[in-house]
């Protein structure tokens, strides 16, 4: 994926065929940046799977947050009349052996997973963008320090470290957990951003800003990062699904979200043994996880193709 991405800028190649410098001032002047976004959006819409993915993500969001009003049971509510019941009219996804409603649990887990994924992805991408761009733009000692940090984090076994640290933040907010997840997720992107910054730094509009006396940090946030927006958007999307999966992995082993709260990961972890005996306990959360990750990946793929018309070679 990474090698097909270039810094954006200018009208997309598809716009220019044939006319060379044709579309001049007399041609109806349209807002070119907006039209580029429109073009990306149009290309995105052309991909049915990506649209389906987007719709599914939106639906999952909706259902997860509306679930407290949809179902009759809350995730921390016990039904002492129903232990280990299979799906029924009152417990749509059945119940657990303690009498928890599996639908409510799954929805609660879905909420957590979505938030962890989105928040973590945002943090990871922001961190990657900042560190990568600073290393690439300033070079020298800044670069050496940041690249060393990146390399160091890359070789550290993230899973192990979070596992070791997890007891120490037990009882604290789960947000720390998101931060930790994000902290191990940004390095590869940071390297890509650094590489692109190196080439953007030599572009004339960056020189122009520098010679005007615009400070470096401002050039980064104003000229460099916006010009790799497509990379960052795609990266963030892909991070969402990786982070959800990372959380699932960690929670499965008991290092993630702590009870009484649940996430898709803790649910799958807790009820994996029941997969054969009481399948509803396991398969409902697992199915939602699969659907969620799949849908997000479809959106990510669609975005990538929409931003980069050469990726698939249509017309």
């Amino acid at each position, binding site marked *: 994926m990474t090698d097909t991405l270039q810094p954006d800028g200018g009208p997309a190649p598809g716009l220019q*065929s044939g006319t*060379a*410098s044709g579309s001049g001032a007399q041609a109806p002047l349209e807002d070119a940046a907006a039209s580029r976004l429109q073009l990306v959006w149009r290309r995105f819409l052309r991909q049915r799977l990506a649209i389906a993915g987007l719709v599914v993500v939106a639906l999952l969001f909706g259902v997860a947050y509306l679930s407290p009003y949809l179902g009759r049971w809350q995730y921390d509510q016990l039904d002492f009349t129903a232990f280990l019941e299979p799906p029924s009219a009152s417990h749509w996804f059945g119940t657990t052996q303690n009498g928890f409603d599996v639908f409510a649990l799954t929805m609660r887990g879905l909420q957590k997973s979505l938030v962890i994924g989105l928040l973590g992805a945002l943090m990871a991408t922001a961190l990657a963008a900042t560190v990568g761009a600073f290393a690439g733009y300033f070079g020298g000692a800044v670069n050496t320090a940041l690249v060393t940090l990146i390399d160091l984090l890359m070789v550290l076994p993230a899973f192990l470290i979070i596992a070791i640290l997890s007891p120490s933040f037990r009882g604290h907010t789960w947000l720390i957990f998101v931060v930790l997840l994000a902290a191990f997720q940004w390095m590869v992107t940071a390297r890509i951003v650094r590489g692109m910054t190196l080439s953007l730094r030599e572009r004339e*509009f960056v020189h122009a800003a520098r010679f005007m006396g615009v400070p470096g940090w401002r050039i980064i946030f104003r000229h460099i990062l916006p010009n790799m927006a497509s990379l960052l958007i795609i990266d963030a999307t892909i991070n969402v699904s990786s982070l959800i999966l990372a959380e699932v992995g960690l929670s499965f082993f008991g290092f993630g979200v702590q009870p009484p709260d649940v996430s898709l990961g803790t649910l799958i972890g807790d009820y994996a043994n029941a997969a054969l005996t009481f399948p509803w306990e396991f398969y409902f959360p697992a199915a939602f996880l699969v659907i969620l990750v799949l849908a997000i990946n479809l959106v990510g793929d669609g975005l990538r193709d929409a931003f980069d018309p050469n990726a698939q070679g249509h017309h």
Partner: protein
Amino acid sequence: MRVTAPGTPLLSVRDLSVSFRTEAGLVRAVRSVSYDVAPGEVLGIVGESGSGKSVSSLAVMNLLPGHAEVTGSARLNGQELIGQSDDALSAVRGSRIAMVFQDPLSALTPVYTVGDQIAEAILVHETVSRGEAMRRAVDLLHTVGIPNAAQRATAFPHEFSGGMRQRVMIAMAIANRPSLIIADEPTTALDVTIQAQILDVLQTARRMTGAAIVLITHDLGVIAGIADRVSVMYAGTIVETGSVDDVFYRPRMPYTLGLLGSIPRADAGERQPLTPIEGTPPSLINLPTGCPFVPRCPMAQDICRREEPGLLPIAGREPADTQRAACHFKDDIEQRQLTSRDIFPAPLPSSDAVRSVPREQRQQMLVVQDLVKSYPQMKGAVLRRKVGEVRAVDGVSFDIREGETLGLVGESGCGKTTTIMEILNLGRPASGHIAVLGHDTARMSGAEKFGIRRDLQVVFQDPMASLDPRLPIGEILAEPLRAHGVAPERVSARVRELLTLVGLRAEHVNRYPAAFSGGQRQRIGIARALALEPKILVLDEPVSALDVSVRAGVINLLERLRDQLGLSYLFVAHDLAVVRHIGNRVAVMYLGRIIESGDVDEVFDRPAHPYTQALLSAIPLPDPHKERARVRIVLKGDLPSPANPPSGCRFRTRCQKFANELTEPQRQRCIDESPALLPRTGSPDHLDACHWATAVEVL
């Protein structure tokens, strides 16, 4: 040479039209183009980008992509080429028509040696032995002026310089003695001295094979020197055609007139005002009816909007006259003998108020003294170590005084860009000094540098690359203002003021750079540079990326601003004609050094250094009579590597004087002693770096 009945054209193109379907709509790239090429003649096709000049020739060769819709006819010796299968045409391509492209690197296969590729071209069309084909390939390489042809034939395309590759392309083109060579911008990517070499080779090739040449270019100067007839294309169609003399001296279509009036002349002593053609070429999508030049034509009337004029002879000429023009008022122009200045409003000559003060009494705005910039040369992939250094700039000195323009000229690789980057960085040079408004950059604090940036601004070459495509132009123009703490309430007023100053509409502040044409974008770049009211402007090839017809407007604007705002310019360019037009002083660089400098007129009229002489003599003049009468100094070979410059005079490996005029002891001095930049021609202000300098007139 094939025998053709006299009077029958070799190539006859009739009603050729090409269109492309795109997402934006139907692009009518070529509209009903007809022309003939007689055996052995050179037809020049001129036009700007998007005029359809290349597409029409590619269509003749059937080299357009599959989705192009081509109609009409093109007959070569009576044989139809349009609509033929690729198989049928491949017999014609290469053997009877050959093509020379702008970018030879993409036309040559990188994995075969050039000898093999030429031999292959011969073998496809002829049954000769491989050895024989190879021998002929070497001969051809020799003909096109490749030194050590036998040895170079075994080299790969990437081992050749751009000029040498173009020679290889020409060798390949004439391998089968074609009767027609189509050369599509063959010299556009090349430096002017290399361009002169290639045009020379093209002439040789023509003499040898007797082939007719269709030369496609945007450079009227190139056409003037080599073509017999010329066709001017605009918006996909031919708007004027005729003999070179007719079209250059008696143009009858306003576009041609404007084009000729808009090019600066390297040989023009007193400054002629340039007549800019306002606006830009029309989009070929949904072209309105009527004359395509209407929006830019000061003579346009109602009839022009209703009907597109045909390409017709001019009334009152002899029947044999071949000139045709597509304008409703061509006869009017003929009768009244209108010139470009009658039709297009030329700017009023600007005042020289500042420059009327003697030079010595004006303030020194920028001083560069003995500037050196070197890059380490690294070797090794794993353990990189320094093996030497390349002195990209090696002891450059010049100064710019208030109100004047210094043109810094030289071919690619001469170090002019490195020089200005050193100046703009405001750093401490490895050796030498830079002083901006009297402040030495080596001794400046960060705050002082920041302050001096107000006074020293830059305009870049490529107006697309120098504007951030993600920001509306209002934001782009506000950036320097905000960076220097201009009060927010002043910013938006100043932005509008700037837009008006450079001739753009203030309402356009919210548009993005992509919505503007090249010339307009360059105006935005200039407006940004002027935002902080600088005193010195560094202009890095500000017009070379622009179409010919819009260059004049930008040059005029720069002149007006300089005189109106009292600016000083450091104008970097490879186009000497532009420098002569706008410059007051000029410095010529070669391989990291200034080899000649002085007053523009002095240097252009009486160049003393052999390199300057060669450079000036290589510029094609858009004047057929002069062009034919000129004797060109064609330099040998390519620029030596700056990593390993020749001893003594750096120019001696290519110096025509060294090769032809000097005696042995004189040559020894060139080899041993590096010539200093001194006044040698009598005028104290005219410096050159040649031991044996004599002023010669070459233009």
